[in-house]
């Protein structure tokens, strides 16, 4: 302090701070002025807190900005969806007609401007309100508030007459990096199909990957597969819909193809939240994120949808396909019984290495080599190690004509979950764990919760009256991930290069050298093509 003059000191205090644009001098003088004006008793305490506020860069913006009236442009759509979700008209001055009161499920879905009122679709929905209480009791699901929005979304989805939904259920929520997916599982009425275009998979080229299909730009550069998808059964028995938030218009997810399932097994990707995003990885995924989501849904549904033993009864169709239907005379066992793994069975069959839950046989006319190609495909599918292959319980035995080197056993539906293999790489860790809603012994009316370790986020809760499955997670399987190696480097072409004989005959040899030069000089720049031809 000694060497500083008053001017120096003032100049120093007046240096402007680079981040906030004010300086110490102004601030100190403000404080001194405030303290003198306030004449408070505890001036010292005010002083300290004032410095603290300064340090936090607290600048009060209250009263600065004018408050806008009306909607932010980015909020317009969510607001509209919110009101439509709750079946109310938006309170806007622009609306010409007066808002009507709506009864539940009686009114039309279309905006009031339409004179016609198409009939509301009759459908069955899951009793989510009841389920949400049980989910909460066990510590799973998405919470009561969000679940209520999902309930309304279920209604909105089911009401829509164009979709033609017969039954609908909330499958689960997939968390993505920048956006989430709410997925609904449904069955459709006869003859109904959504209005989303589907990606067709071309038959014909078996096992060839990277085949270009100029027919549809969507499929360009993506691998195609000869094994056709299962229509309406197995992995495509249910139709799935998704939306980003309850209230959004639901989009239908296309059916899943076996190649998509097989490839999804070899990838470990997170969903970005944009359904049109590319799923980049090796092996190349035949589709966009929409398809990847669908493939994960298929895997999760087939691995983690469970039901108490006896709830479903399997029946054989004419085509040898098994369908499960709820049994008529079924009563839920008491809670004490439900806590045993043996009491629970898988609802769906396992997805085979082929990528389908029912085996696809090549038509016989293809011949033996095609069948071998199939076998090879099945072997290749092993790269992505997953323990969806149980060695027991062959419920579906079809007369196998082809001798595939690795006979794949096809576990059918309704196998008890106690026989699920332990997690790969970890002994003793069962695929399922059971817990109850309360740790207090003897508490009546508890809820039993089964939790999957293979697919973290898959839960099933049960009470003596009902049970319910849900999935909330990233869509990633809990298994050690082994990335696929790229294919071996292709060998050089070894054969002798032979000139083709079917090309047009050789042109005449060029004229002698001197003439050519003369011609070239004269021609100059204008006749370059002549020169080229001569060469």
């Amino acid at each position, binding site marked *: 302090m000694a060497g500083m003059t008053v001017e120096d000191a003032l100049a120093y205090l007046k240096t402007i701070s680079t981040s906030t644009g004010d300086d110490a001098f102004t601030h100190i003088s403000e404080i001194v002025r405030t303290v003198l004006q306030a004449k408070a008793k505890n001036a010292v305490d005010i002083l300290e807190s004032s410095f603290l506020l300064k340090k936090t860069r607290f600048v009060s913006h209250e009263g600065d900005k004018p408050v806008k009236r009306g909607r932010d442009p*980015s909020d317009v759509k969510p607001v509209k969806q919110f009101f439509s979700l709750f079946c109310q008209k938006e309170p806007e001055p622009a609306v010409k007609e007066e808002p009507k009161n709506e009864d539940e499920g009686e009114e039309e879905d279309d905006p009031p401007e339409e004179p016609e009122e198409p009939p509301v679709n009759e459908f069955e929905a899951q009793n989510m309100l009841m389920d949400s209480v049980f989910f909460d009791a066990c510590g799973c699901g998405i*919470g009561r*508030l*969000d679940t209520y929005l999902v309930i309304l979304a279920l209604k909105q989805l089911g009401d829509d007459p164009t979709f033609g939904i017969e039954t609908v259920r909330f499958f689960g*929520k997939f968390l993505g*990096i920048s956006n989430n997916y709410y997925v609904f599982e449904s069955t459709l009425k006869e003859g109904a199909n959504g209005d989303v275009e589907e990606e067709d998979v071309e038959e014909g080229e078996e096992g060839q990957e990277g085949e270009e299909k100029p027919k549809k730009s969507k499929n360009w550069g993506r691998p195609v597969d000869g094994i056709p998808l299962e229509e309406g059964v197995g992995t495509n028995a249910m139709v799935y819909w998704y939306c980003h938030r309850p209230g959004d218009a639901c989009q239908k997810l296309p059916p899943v193809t076996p190649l998509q399932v097989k490839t999804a097994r070899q990838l470990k990707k997170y969903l970005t939240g944009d359904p049109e995003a590319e799923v980049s990885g090796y092996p190349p995924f035949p589709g966009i994120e929409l398809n990847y989501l669908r493939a994960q849904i298929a895997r999760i549904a087939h691995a983690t949808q469970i039901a108490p033993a006896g709830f479903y009864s399997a029946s054989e169709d004419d085509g040898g396909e098994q369908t499960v239907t709820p049994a008529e005379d079924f009563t839920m066992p008491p809670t004490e019984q439900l806590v045993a793994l043996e009491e629970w069975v898988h609802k769906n069959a396992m997805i085979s290495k082929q990528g389908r839950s029912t085996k696809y046989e090549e038509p016989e006319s293809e011949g033996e080599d095609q069948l071998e190609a199939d076998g090879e495909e099945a072997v290749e599918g092993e790269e992505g190690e997953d323990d969806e292959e149980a060695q027991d319980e062959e419920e579906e035995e079809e007369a196998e004509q082809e001798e595939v080197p690795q006979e794949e056993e096809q576990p059918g539906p309704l196998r008890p979950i106690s026989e699920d293999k332990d997690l790969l790489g970890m002994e003793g860790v069962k695929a399922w*764990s059971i817990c109850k*809603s309360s740790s207090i012994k003897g508490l009546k009316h508890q809820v039993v919760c089964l*939790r999957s*370790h293979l697919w973290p986020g898959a839960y099933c809760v049960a009470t003596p009256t009902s049970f319910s499955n849900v999935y909330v997670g990233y869509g990633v399987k809990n298994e050690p991930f082994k990335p696929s190696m790229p294919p071996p480097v292709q060998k050089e072409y070894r054969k002798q290069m032979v000139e083709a004989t079917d090309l047009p005959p050789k042109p005449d040899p060029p004229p002698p050298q001197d003439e050519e030069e003369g011609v070239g000089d004269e021609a100059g720049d204008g006749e370059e093509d002549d020169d080229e031809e001569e060469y």
Partner: protein
Amino acid sequence: MESNLTLMLEALAGQGCILPSEQRAALDISLKIKKQDAGLSTLALWGRVFTRTGNDYILAEGTVSAKRVDRKLVFDTKYYFTQDGVLWLDLQPPENDYRYALCKSAKGPFTGDPANVFLVVSDPVEPSEFEKLVEPAVAGDKSSSSVTDEKTGSEADTEAPSESEPENDDNDEDPPGEPGEAQVIPDEEVVEGEGGGEGGAEGELEEIPAGVEVPELERLCGLMKWIDEECGVVPINSLVLTPHDDLIKNHAFTGPIFFDELDSYCHLFGGYMTAPLSKDLPGSWGCHVIPLQNDVIVKSLVWPGYFSYYSTTNHDWGSIYFGYGEKNNDIGFGVP
């Protein structure tokens, strides 16, 4: 740092962070009781770790103090766990870096039994770090043996491999994790080939360790510390240093201006203002704004199950971990 429990659980419920109703009902009160009993300045719910058997752990973290010492932020944190939501029990953090590294190497889900002990084979280390760890890595199943050692009281054997002792003077108490002392034991137990004064198999790099015992609770605490260091997300400027170098909650916090940018959030235990999330491995964080509710959720993809939220309406923030306690090492494949 303490956050509003109700708001946080409500904001993050949509991500799957649900506590069972019974535990949730007990939590508000039990946290308060524990805070008073332990004399903490803050006590917050840290998260829930799922276990193999269904007896999940609910974890809480409290701070006694958070100070700036020599340009670094030093936190005195206490860790607690409960399985029923009512009674909170202490968790001891791992004593030294070696134990901490062991906790990190443990694989597999937790069992839900607090008395469980894991046998951990430490991860292979870089050659440069090998010297520090060469004795412990080779000590084998020392914990079980060290118990018997204490019982028989065979102090006489300690002099035999005395040449190996000098390197490990630091920890002279006798926890099972003490490398130097344990050096003795294989010699004593393995009568066959080794013999006494060989100094253990110090030079034998090929010997595969049978596994070190790590109690489940220690691993749990190590996990909390690990996730705190790697995550521990707070919005910038949400905490502030007092003139006494204490870090306290900023009561004048009005929130980051660009709340949907990763720049606005930082690692509290990793350097605070100097460690924004945007400097992390690209793609390891996802930021999601919920329209109309204006809640921002920051998700970690390296630790799936870790969420941090910030509410623009009431400037509240918090973070939580709901998961199995396993880090996602395949992050490189997973991000677009």
